[in-house]
């Protein structure tokens, strides 16, 4: 079965640079969620999109922005990167009417040096 695809899987950036993470949800899933998992931490909800509109916002820094496109893929844009942004970034998706059942991608490991 198709799963959530995230790219790239690994990314190394320097402080103050920008990064773009991509997420391709499971086909026919219309809701996308982004989570950030710091080293040794639990995943923290950042932001979600439903039908290309932002549906909810968690602890996402103002330096980050995200959007969902017409094909339902989503991109997380991160600017002015800081060392503390180093983390595993997960994307999850859910099917119409099944918002409580989120399927996670493998994650993008971002390292800021």
């Amino acid at each position, binding site marked *: 079965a198709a799963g959530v695809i995230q790219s790239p899987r690994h990314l190394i950036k320097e402080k103050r640079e920008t990064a773009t993470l991509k997420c391709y949800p499971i086909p026919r899933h219309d*809701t996308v*969620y982004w*989570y950030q998992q710091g080293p040794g931490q639990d995943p923290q*909800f950042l932001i979600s999109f439903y039908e290309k509109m932002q549906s909810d916002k968690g602890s996402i820094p103002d330096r980050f922005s995200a959007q969902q496109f017409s094909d339902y893929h989503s991109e997380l844009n991160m600017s002015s990167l800081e060392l503390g942004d180093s983390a595993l970034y997960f994307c999850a998706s859910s099917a119409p009417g099944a918002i409580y059942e989120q399927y*996670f991608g493998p*994650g993008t490991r971002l390292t800021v040096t």
Partner: protein
Amino acid sequence: AQSVTQPDIHITVSEGASLELRCNYSYGATPYLFWYVQSPGQGLQLLLKYFSGDTLVQGIKGFEAEFKRSQSSFNLRKPSVHWSDAAEYFCAVGALRSGYSTLTFGKGTMLLVSP
């Protein structure tokens, strides 16, 4: 606001022994509860979920969990642990915010399996 507590940071179990991982939640309404497993460097895999109905839910890989409203708990169990079960386990509660669901995770329990 909802919260999840996993009291055990690490648990070591002998292969073939039974396992119980504890999870307590705090949520004002009927919770939607989940257990996810994460292998090192990997994503989160859904093991099982509770929405309503039968309080004992079966999941993949031989895991089960029991919802106990009176104790605000959703403990994960497996009768016989295999070495491949070594991973980190996260309990999560789903809550509606602005009409859409978000997941709040516990801090995780790292399961170590000894020979």
